Every structure is written in C-alpha cells, then in structure tokens.
C-alpha cells in the first residue's frame, strides 16, 4: 500500500485520473506530496482543493490510519499494487484505493464473475429466477458479484452461502458500517465462506445515495457481464446497467410480465437492446463461449412434470394438487374450485407445504415448488 496514493485518494475530488496526472506532472507522488502551493497551482488545482490538501496533510498520519484498518481486519489495495483485481483495472474510472474484507484471491482464481443485481423489493418471481440462475452459476464455477442490498442482491449472496461457494459483495458504505443493518449476519457469512466484501469508501463513510451509484460502477467493473433480474424504471439497478454498457460489458436481462411494476425497468432495458435471457446457459455461452445452446433447458423448471410421488395422496389431495400450478393461486380460488371444506383444504395445504410440494408466496397464495 502506497502511503501517497492513500493520502491523495482521501482528498476531495481526487480520483485515479488525477493521481495518474499528478505522477505524470511531478514525477512521483512523493514529490507531489511535498510540493508547495505554487506547484499545485501550476498543476491546475483550484484553491479549494489545495486548501483541502494542506489541511489533511497537517493531520495525516499514515501508520495510525493503517492501524485503524488492521484493527478492523480490513485490507487496503491501491491501483498500483499487484493484487489489485486485474478486471477492475480495465474500467475507465477504477478506484485508486479499494478496501476489502475476506479473500480476494478467488477473484483471480476463478476468473469468471457475473454481476447479479435487481431491485430491493422484488416479487416471488424475481426470487425464484435469482435462485435458479445463481445455482447454475455456482455449479459452473462462476462467482456472483452483487451489492449486498436487500432483495435480489441478498438472495444471490444467500444462494452462494448455502452452496459454500464464494461470492463478492460490493458495498456503498465504509466497511465498518453495516447497511442494511439486517444483513449483518449475511456479510459475516460471506467472509466466513471465503467470499469478499469490497468497498472503495474509507471507514466511517455512511450510506449516501450517490455512494451507492458509484458502488454500482464497481459491481459492473468486477463482473464479466451483468444479469438484471427485476428492476423498477427509476432504480439503482438501471445505473448498474448503464455502467456496464459504458464499460463495454454485456447486460443480460430476464424479462418480466408487462403488468408487473417490478419488471418495468428490466423490460425497458430489453426494449433498448439489452440481451434477453431465459436461461443462465445463454449467459455462459455468450461471455465465455462454453456450453451448447441447443441443450438449453430452463423451461424444465416450469413446464416439464417433475417426478413427484403422488401415491400417498387421497382423492381430495389430488384434486387440490392439480389445482395448484406454478402460477400462485389464492386459497379462496382453491376453495371455490375444489368445492371442499375449508378445514380440509387447510389440512391439505399445510401437508403439501411441509412435504415441500408447494409454498405460500404471501397473501395466502400458493404455488408449486420447482
């Protein structure tokens, strides 16, 4: 970790581009660090930035700062370090310094990453799509990158954790801040699970809206392509798509119902040229050129009858089971259509639920489990 990169990255409005220019202008950052006001003026900094530099220089104590991060088990990498993820170096506005917790080696070992992003409030459809796609990625040694937010992000991380597979979470806050607070345990599990939590923000940075948008740039940067599951029309997910396009990466979108408010943004992206996917294999094929598109079989979850043991079922159970398909059905409709007693239906539904045949997706709506 270079002391001077760390110092300049903390200064207001100085990013990687300016740091590179400083090196070019002064010869090295050390010279720049010791330069006087006129030197900076010649370089073209305005008074405000110069004032900030000198103020920060007065109180800057590199060893103390590093100690703070060490205490929190946070590692620091600068753009010039060898360990800095090569995939991130390629993007135009890569962060000069990144902070991380966990094991970053996986990034280079597996070499295949995919961003999985979506809206914080998602429908049952979004949840099952994320689960199915992530399970495929894991079985194909593709690491998922996501934002650690609620909804789709959390689900993609959770799938990796349940399969003991590393996952990458990019935060919009300092690494000592847990946002959203309810994901505290999830983040711990990501680290325990050989995954990594990355942020470009120094410790103590709170979750400001603009930080999350900058965070999305790194999600796209760390991924070979970005999968968008469900997104509202004006959501952070849309900015991730924008960053991915600017970084010349593929944006894959899972379509949603045209009536669903959860999929408005996703459908908009498809309309505007994003890649329409119905199967995770298509993504694998598109980015890394493996797999055979002909063998694609996502629809398997949805259409083909699963070998379910129906022998234990009585007549009533069969009637109810046949009524419940993959589209969620309300208990009220089940009552009306089956013409059975509500007590009996309650019994049957709970038995199905315990046996894992159906799930209650909320609002007393039931659908079959894939």
């Amino acid at each position: 970790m270079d002391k001077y990169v760390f110092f300049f990255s903390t200064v207001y409005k100085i990013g990687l581009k300016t740091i590179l220019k400083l090196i070019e202008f002064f010869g090295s950052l050390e010279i720049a660090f010791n330069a006087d006001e006129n030197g900076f003026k010649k370089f073209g900094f305005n008074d405000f930035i110069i004032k900030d530099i000198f103020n920060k220089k007065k109180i800057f104590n590199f060893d103390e700062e590093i100690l703070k991060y060490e205490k929190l088990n946070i590692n620091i990498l600068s753009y010039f370090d060898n360990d800095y993820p090569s995939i991130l170096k390629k993007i135009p506005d890569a962060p000069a310094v990144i902070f991380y917790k966990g094991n970053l080696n996986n990034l280079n070992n597996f070499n295949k990453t995919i961003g999985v992003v979506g809206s914080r409030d998602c429908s049952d459809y979004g949840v099952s799509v994320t689960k199915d796609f992530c399970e495929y990625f894991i079985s194909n040694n593709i690491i998922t990158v996501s934002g650690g937010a609620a909804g789709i992000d959390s689900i993609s991380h959770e799938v990796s954790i349940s399969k003991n597979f590393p996952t990458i979470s990019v935060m919009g806050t300092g690494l000592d801040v847990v946002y959203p607070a309810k994901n505290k345990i999830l983040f711990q599990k990501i680290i325990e699970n050989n995954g990594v939590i990355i942020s470009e923000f120094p410790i103590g940075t709170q979750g400001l809206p603009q930080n999350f948008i900058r965070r999305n740039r790194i999600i796209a940067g760390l991924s070979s392509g970005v999968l968008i599951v469900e997104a509202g029309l004006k959501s952070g997910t849309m900015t991730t798509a924008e960053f991915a396009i600017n970084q010349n990466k593929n944006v894959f979108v899972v379509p949603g119902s045209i009536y669903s408010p959860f999929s408005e943004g996703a459908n908009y992206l498809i309309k505007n040229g994003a890649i329409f996917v119905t199967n995770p294999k298509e993504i694998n094929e598109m980015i890394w050129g493996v797999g055979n598109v002909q063998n694609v079989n996502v629809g398997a979850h949805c259409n083909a009858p699963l070998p379910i043991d129906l022998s234990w079922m009585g007549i009533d159970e069969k009637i109810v089971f046949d009524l419940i398909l993959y589209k969620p059905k309300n208990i009220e409709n089940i009552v009306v259509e089956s013409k059975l007693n509500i007590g009996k239906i309650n019994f049957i539904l709970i038995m199905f639920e315990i046996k894992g045949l159906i799930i209650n997706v909320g609002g007393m709506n039931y659908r079959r489990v894939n």
Partner: protein
Amino acid sequence: MFVTGRLNLPSSRRNCHLFVGVFIYYYIFLFWSILFLTLFIMISKIYSCAVIGLDSRLVEIESDIDFGFQKISIVGLPDVSVNESKDRISSALKNSGFDLPRNKITINLAPANIHKAGTLYDLPIALSILLANGQLKRKSFDFSKSLFVGELSLNGDLRKVNGVLSCAIFARENGYENLFIPEQNAQEAALVEGVNVYPISNLNHLIDHLLNKTIIESFKFDKYSYFDSINLMDDSFDFKYIKGQNHAKRALEIAAAGAHNILFYGPPGSGKTMLARSIVTILPKMSEEEILEVSRVHSVAGLLNDKQPIIIKRPFRSPHHSGSCASIVGGGSNPKPGEISLAHRGVLFLDEFPEFSKTVLESLRQPLEDGFVTISRATRTLEFPANFILVASSNPCSCGFFGDSEKKCSCSQLQILKYKNKISGPIADRIDMHVEVPRINFDELSDNNLSEDSASVKNRVEAVIDIQKNRFKNFGIINNSEMKNKHVKEFCKLDNQCLELLKDAVMSLNLSGRAYNRILKLARTIADFDNSENIKMNHIAEALQYRRKE
C-alpha cells in the same frame, strides 16, 4: 319544686336546706337535658356503600346537629363531588318541604380512611340530616338493614348513579335486606336476587315510605323474559354478507369457539375490519352469571342507561388507536375500568393494531395472560376482570402492500422492519391465530357460492363451547385458550403420527418452540369441532395454518 325556709328554724338548719335544694335543681336539669338529647338532638346513622373498583364497602353516614352558625361540614375523606353534595342536599330538602336545621351540621362518612367519590351519597346524607333533627322518626323504620344510594337533584328527584350493581351484590353478601336506589337503576340492581330493591323517584316518596304513609313496592323484575325480549342478532354484520374469505371465516369460527386471540393482517380494503366485526354474530349467548359480571363493569363505568339497563349482548369494544393507556387498560386516580374490562366476556377489537402506542400494547400482556388487570395506585391496588377475545387487525407495512403480488409496496426496508417490530414478540406470542387476509379479485370467484349465515355457524360454536365446559368443569377454566401447561399436557395428548408432523413442521416451517403450546391449544379446539376425543393429524395441520409467519 320550691324550697322555702321557715323563720323559726336555727340558721344552721336553714343552710342545710339550701344545700339540698341546689342538688335537686342540678338533678332536674340533668334529667331534662338527657331527655332533650335523646329525643331531639341525636346522632343519626344511615348505611350506604362506596364503590371501589368493582367492589363495594360499607359506609356509615352519621350526622350531628350542634349549636352554632348554620354550616354543613362533611368529614371522612370526601372528594369534590361529595363535598358539593351539601349544596344539592340543602336545595333538595328545601324544595321537598323540609326544614334545614339552622345549626351546625357535621356529617361523618365512616370508615374515614377510604376515599369517597361520586354522587351516590346525596340521598343517605339527606336522610341522616332529617333523622338527626327529628323530621324523620327513627322508630318508624329499621335503618340498620337498609342501604341508601342516590344522587339528588335540586327539586328532590333522584338521579341515576354508577355502580349500583356492585352495591346490590354487596347488600346480598352482607345481609342488607333493603336497597333504596334511584328509579333508573332499578333493573340493574334487580339482577341480584335476595335483596328487596326499592326504586325511588323522589325524596318525598321515600320519606312517605319510611314514615309508613305510602308504601313503595319493591321492584319486581322478570329478568328471564327481559333477556329473551332483547334481539341478540345484529343482522348488519352477518357472515352471509361476507363474500369469499372462507379461510378467514373458518378462523373466526375457531377463535370464537375456543376464545383464541386472533390477528388479521393484509392490505387495506381486504375486509379485515368487516370480518372482525362479524365475530359478535357467532359468539354464544351469555349465561346469567356472565351478564351479571359484564353489567357490573358497565355499571361502575357508568355505561348503563335507559336503553341498555343491563348488558345482554356480548360486548364488542373497538377503541381508537389514539387511546391512552388509562382509557384502554383502566386507571385514573380513582381507577375506572378501561376498554379491556368493558370487553370482558366479549370482544376487544383493536383495528390498526401496530398504531397503538407501545405502552398500551405492552400493558395488554397481563390481561391477555391472566384474564384480569391489576391497577396499582399509591393509595390502593384494584383488580378488574378482563377476559376477552382479542381481535386485532394490521397492515403488513405502513403503506399496506408489502407482500402483495400486484401492487408495489412503497416502504423502505427499514420502515417495514419498524412497522413489524411495533408488535413485540411477547404480544405476538399471546395471539394464537395469525390470519392473512389477502385482497381478492372478486371477479374470479364464481357468484353461486352461497355463504353460510351466522346462525348456523353459531350453532357449531355453541356445541364446541359445551364440549369445553364439560371438559374443564373441575378445572376452573372455560375455554381451550385458557389452558395452562398442565392442562395442555392432560388434554392435548398426541400420537406418534402427530408428533412426527409437528417435528416436520418445526423443520420446514421455521416454527419457534414458543409456538408449540399455542398450536396444541388451537388443535384442541379444532378437534372439538370434529367432536374428537383425541387430537388427530388433520387438526394439528389446520392449527399450523394459523401460525405466526415470520
């Protein structure tokens, strides 16, 4: 008698005569003064009672008339309403044609250590004044076996007072034969058998009765025919008008039968409130004992009136969520029963449950557990009954659409979490049934499914309640929901199949250990609907359907 000396007697002898004379004068004076005291100026005693909480205590009212400027002073911890009664009494006495003694009147309310509040002492104080100055003859009536209660108006008419039912119960328990009360309170007092209730309309009538001039007949009340005359069925919330929601209706039926607390949650407009209100139509009739209990609470709270002299319908209380802790749980410096006690033996409906203040919700813990509430003040500790079915309704989040499949929820994660956390774990644990009420697209429902009406549901509920009564007749409880752990052990035995099912449920449905007893109690009620001695698998399964979903 006059003593005159004779002139011829020696002087010493004459002195002796004088000495005797003084003594005789003295004794004559003493005789007349005692006679005067016993006949006219005499301390008089009238019995009345104080209502403290729901109970009554005897209050002796003594009046003494002494020489001095005209003044009435009331001693014995009277509060303002009692102290003001002297002005009402003096006007009432004047306007009824009696003389108010132009002397100093001291009225003592004994025992002097209990706080006296309310207007019910007007009548007994007035009587004791009349008794003290001899306008009412002590011999004409035996005051020691009678209790007097009532508020006076300025013209001598009697006004209704609160807590008469408690007074009547006190009279019966303590052997007071006669109870004189305002006319409007007659019906509630007559609920208590074994006491002669005399309805008084006017002070003069009472005096005439006490002087044996015109006799007031004791109030005869045929309560059974009165009970039957009240139409218990409120048609407007009948089950038959609720379309669909069979799931929620079945849950209500179970809740009503086993007195289980129930929480409905779902988006706005899904019919939670309508469902909750309809529970009254399927609750069984109150027994006579219950009518007495409920009317007593309402009597103390002053909620009985001409239209509703006795509470015969099961109470349904739905306080607004802005209500204070004292109004809902009961309280005040002179504690009065709150909404939860007014809902005793009935339904307490808390609409928008999470919107109630934290203190209100948390203070529901004790009553939900014990069926009564203890209110402690510096001066006293009171107990009010509060055995009610809690029916609560809630939205899943503040905008109401969290989890809805069609409409998007506009709340942030934090807001949703905050909203959910408003109902604390201990409170949610005391609610046996958590029922989701979804929005229903009614077009999807075929129109020809006729809903069952409340009357037939009620029949089933009453049958289940009879089963429970039989089961618990030696255990001091009535409903399945009141079962304690030892009762659960005895009456909710499970076979291996059921245990297996519960084990599976704990695994696959994320059930907490605390939910276990709740599910057993609920399964007991569901089994009672099948008239089944043992809890079977389908009963457990249905009970699981009403679990709390995380």
